[in-house]
């Protein structure tokens, strides 16, 4: 309990004194996780929407796989990305290993299934409401998908937040492909892991507190943006 109190004091001190190393780690954490979230949304949302509006043989199996992939073990993803990006791997020529690019790639792979599966559920509910109207208007599948994505945009912000939450809290994949190199690939979670292994628990806890505040801040920011936009547009509250 003493170390928890000390951790709070240390976290406060780190933030208030403007520790340069801390800000560098925070900035890289945000850069990596927000980039991964954006990429995962670009890939995952259309997949989710496409599955939401499509009926095909084996769809049930696809849903099971999509849902199962939400629980992808980060270390396995990290290992696979490592194998692909290592010098002898098929993507070794890119020279991405132990760079933030590799960390973004690993986190993107981790959260694409989350974004796809959750958006599929959200958009399928919306599609149930719109489907007959779409068919009456003879909309193409692409028109249906883009309409659903636009009309479901406020609910999809929550999906993006879920992906960000997974990315920013993840340590297994980024430590494998990033290597936790100081001033290069060290992010909040890998720094916490390092300080814990060194036995500096108060500092590890302090970093954990900063990470929590960071995640809370991003969530609060997006939530307030979503609510004010929804109030402005007065769109269906049940889907906000």
């Amino acid at each position, binding site marked *: 309990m003493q170390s928890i109190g000390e951790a709070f004091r240390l976290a406060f001190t780190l933030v208030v004194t403007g520790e340069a190393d801390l800000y560098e780690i925070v900035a890289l954490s945000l850069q990596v996780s927000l980039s991964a979230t954006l990429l995962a949304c670009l890939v995952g949302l259309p997949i989710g929407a496409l599955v939401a509006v499509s009926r095909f043989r084996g769809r049930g199996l696809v849903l099971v796989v999509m849902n199962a992939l939400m629980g992808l073990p980060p270390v396995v993803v990290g290992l696979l990305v490592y194998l692909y990006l290592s010098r002898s791997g098929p993507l070794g020529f890119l020279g991405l290993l132990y760079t933030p690019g590799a960390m973004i790639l690993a986190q993107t792979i981790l959260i694409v299934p989350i974004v796809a599966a959750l958006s599929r559920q959200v958009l399928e509910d919306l599609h149930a*409401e719109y489907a007959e109207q779409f068919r009456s208007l003879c909309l193409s599948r692409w028109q249906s998908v883009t309409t659903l994505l636009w009309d479901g945009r406020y609910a999809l912000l929550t999906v993006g937040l879920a992906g960000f939450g997974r990315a920013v809290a993840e340590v297994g994949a980024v430590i494998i492909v990033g290597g936790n190199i100081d001033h290069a690939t060290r992010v909040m979670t890998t720094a916490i892991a390092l300080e814990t292994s060194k036995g500096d628990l108060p500092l590890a806890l302090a970093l954990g507190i900063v990470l929590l505040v960071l995640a809370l801040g991003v969530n609060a920011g997006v939530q307030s943006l979503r609510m004010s936009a929804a109030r402005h547009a007065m769109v269906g509250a049940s889907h906000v």
Partner: protein
Amino acid sequence: MSDLQMTDVVPLVPRARTGVGHVAPLLPLEVSGLRLDVGGAALLDGVDLTLAPGGCTVIMGPNGAGKSILLKLLHGLLAPSSGSVSWNALPATQATARQALVFQKPVLLRRSVAANMDFVLKARGADRGRRDALLEDVGLAHKARQPARLLSGGEAQRLALARALATDPEVLFLDEPTASLDPASVLVIERIVGEACARGTRIVFVTHDIGQARRIADEVVFLHRGRVAEHSRATDFFPEPRSQAARDYLAGKIIV
């Protein structure tokens, strides 16, 4: 909406559409032995029906008679278990694209009133310059920038109707569009539908409201237990219905 001459096929006012050129007309509609089974129950049980161009057909019948199901089958939203729907022998998808359906509960996008109109006009490749005139026509021009989902029930239905008319349909289906609306809103809807009918749009209107049916119908299709119990001119149907079910229905008796 127009006076009829009854024959086997009820001949109604010909559609006064210009610019259709060589495009084959959508009507007449020939429905033969239409049946829809769901979970072992026949929701429609062998419907035979013919609709000629022009005018307003009102579909009536008690709850569960199959009115909405029939509308969706005619519009191509549902596939029948057996039987056929033939729009002048045109392919089903081509026929659906030349029709519009107004649902009992308006399905409005989470956008402004104007954006709802733009969406349909764009989807159908229609002239978006018509938007304001259409909104003016249904009395919603002053609400163009408001979120559509904040409209009252009557306004929402008027928007749905304007959106349907924006596609310039040759056939307009309406599935109880005035259910739960106040009398003023009902009259507005009826006026707009009447004007569309006068312009040559074929109207197929489902309603429970006998008074409304009297006001707008050129002909009546009375459904009972998934079958067409009667298909007559309105001028014949209301004073002297041929079927017992229709007689009981018009007399206000409970029929199932």
